């Protein structure tokens, strides 16, 4: 009565250890991660250290390569979980965790933060865009570039407002005076498919809604309501949507 289940459990345990060591082998010291993900309330900072690319929320990864992802947190505990790509792993402040990935097929893979991290935990979703290696390298190169300075008057006005309305004190745009990472990096915002980790599609209308009244779109988010007038918001949005 006790022997049977014990044998079964022993078998399960053997399988457990084998699978653990296959899926999540120890990370050799001094390994250089391919991607560093830093969790923030409630967005993902994505760093590609070898290419010096920093982006946010949309995670592009090459297919067919064994990747080492380093997981860190800027504030509270978060958790990275893309079910189709493998196990979940916590992002713990003052700790570095690691995730091995080997994606076989190109495509979009969705996931979600899986450790309650505060008010908008529900909208800290994950969108992984897996691309074949050449597409991925193209994307990486494009993201390493500084965006072209705005040329039309509305966008120029928007870029000035971006600095003066204090957007720059939280959001980095490469090539400008905005260098802080309190909020997501916006350097290539226009090239992303969604806004706010999947809450809405990335288009001018939605971005307008967000910039006008963040607390109505994602209540509890750390971006305050700036109560800007419509034209200012339009200009800023126009500028941002040119950042491809």
């Amino acid at each position, binding site marked *: 009565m006790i022997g049977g289940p014990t044998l079964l459990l022993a078998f399960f*345990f053997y399988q457990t*250890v084998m699978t653990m060591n296959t899926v999540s082998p120890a990370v050799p010291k001094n390994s250089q991660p391919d991607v560093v993900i830093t969790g923030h309330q409630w967005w993902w900072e994505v760093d590609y250290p070898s290419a010096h690319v920093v982006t946010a929320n949309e995670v592009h990864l090459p297919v067919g390569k064994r990747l080492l992802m380093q997981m860190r947190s800027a504030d509270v505990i978060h958790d990275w*979980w893309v079910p189709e790509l493998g196990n979940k792993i916590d992002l713990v402040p003052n700790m570095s965790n690691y995730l091995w990935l080997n994606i076989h097929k190109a495509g979009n893979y969705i996931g979600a933060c899986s450790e309650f991290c505060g008010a908008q935990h529900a909208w800290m979703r994950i969108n992984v865009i897996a691309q074949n290696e050449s597409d991925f390298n193209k994307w990486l190169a494009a993201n390493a570039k500084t965006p072209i300075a705005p040329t039309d008057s509305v966008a120029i006005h928007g870029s000035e407002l971006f600095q003066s309305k204090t957007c720059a004190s939280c959001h980095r745009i490469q090539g400008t005076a905005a260098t802080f990472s309190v909020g997501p990096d916006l350097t290539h915002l226009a090239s992303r498919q969604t806004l706010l980790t999947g809450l809405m599609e990335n288009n001018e209308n939605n971005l307008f809604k967000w910039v006008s009244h963040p607390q109505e779109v994602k209540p509890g988010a750390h971006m305050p309501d700036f109560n800007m007038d419509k034209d200012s918001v339009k200009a800023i949005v126009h500028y941002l949507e040119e950042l491809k």
Partner: protein
Amino acid sequence: MSDSIYIPEPSKSFPSMSVTGDQGLLQWISTVDHKMIGIMYLLVALLFMLIGGVEALLMRIQLAVPLNHFLGPETYNQFFTMHGTTMIFLVAMPAVFGFAVYFTPLMIGANEMAFPRLNAFSLWMTLLGGMLLYFSFLAGGAPDAGWFNYAPLNEKNYSINSGIDYYCMGLLLAGIGSVTTSVNLIVTILHYRVKGMALNKLPLFVWMVFVNSFLLLAAFPALNAALSMLLLDRQFGAHFFNTTSGGSALLWQHLFWIFGHPEVYIVILPPFGILSEVFPVFSRKPIFGYSFVAASSVAIALLAFGVWAHHMFAVGMGNTVDAFFSASSMLIGIPTGVKVFNWIATMYGGKIKFTVSMMFAIAFLIEFTIGGLSGIAFAIVPIDWQLTDTYFVVAHLHYVFIGGTIFGILSGLFYWFPKMTGKFLSEKMGKWFFWLFVIGFNGTFLVQHILGLIGMPRRVYTYPNLPWYGALNMISTIGAFIMGGSILLLGYMIIKSLKNGKKAGNDPWDGFSLEWITTSPPSLKNFDEVPVVHGRRPLWDLKNPGNPDK
């Protein structure tokens, strides 16, 4: 002028609820009688179950459809935190204590608990802790970091309002109530047993309460330490869990789960004990494998302290540590399996009486086993690495908490209600309640296994319109409302029975243990005379002198 104070002594065993005179409510709030205190524990559990249930229903309305706007995130997060905290600390524990303090003295042939005033103190501390916790709603917001309240989210810089301070203080107070009750129960069981009742002849309910009390005494200090340390962080600038100043987020998790895992065994062992009374009586057979059932509870209590980090498999402790806790978590399934086998073997070959109490006991076997199997699945670390923090966990925990603890308590309620009140709960309505509750419960939580498997994380106030998410959530919400409706039926049944239920005699079920010797309800002094005990079923021996046990 008189220099002595008149203290109204109770003259009735079951005082009324009137506010006039000194034999009504005044008796209830000043009593040190273990039976009245037991009933009040059950009333506390009932009150908080209604509140926790409303919180759950409101959450289920919010989750019924994708992208809903019924509750905002701040409100929802407070509700899921309070729902979990309430159900565990203010429903499951008081319910378990209610039956424990009511029936332990009766079943060992004693007239009172060892420390009657301490007993009353414990009850009121529990209620005070609950009220302090709920006061937070009026004081800037309830705690909203989840019932396990992880660091550093629980620190002042991420949770500004005082909800979490109320969480700490409320649980510290309720915890004092729990610890003192456990001390009281152990001393009672060790020193007040009737002659002949050696420890290996204890009724299994009492044995479970006994082991459980040790478990509680060993586990609560970890929670008390964590809560005190968090209060020091939040109020006095200490650095235990504040990661921006050198504190450790993981220290909170270790301390919490060293308490938290034993806690789930604390709320299930007494229901195991209730079942160990109900199965024999309604199968008309002694329990199969008494020693195994008793010994396995000791094994569970000891192993409970060796599995806590299975709640932390995704935290990054390393494969070696994970493997150890995986092994221990698989092991702990074995003693529970032994118990289930023993209960089934008790029924086998017996003359089964399908009272509502027995129906809940049999249903427990199915529901709790489902919950146990999903739990063992989590012991397999790679499975946990996919399913932890998803709705699969929510399904698992409700199958063990409701399917286990609540079904056990309901079985005990229908079994012992006649003894406590002298009236039967309607068996006919009880069967309606049973089926409604079972259908509602399974409707709510069975689909949540699937939701977890298809990727829905837990503790989310809303979710995107992904395939099947909306449909499964809607089914779950409908199930929840059926469950809620059934609880209303239970409330109606209790009130109706108290008013004009069928009268019950001393021994309505032809029972085996000593509580059925005395009147229903027992008079203030439980026993004038108790027979010397020889076997494990003292009342059976009394009623069957030609065929006593062993």
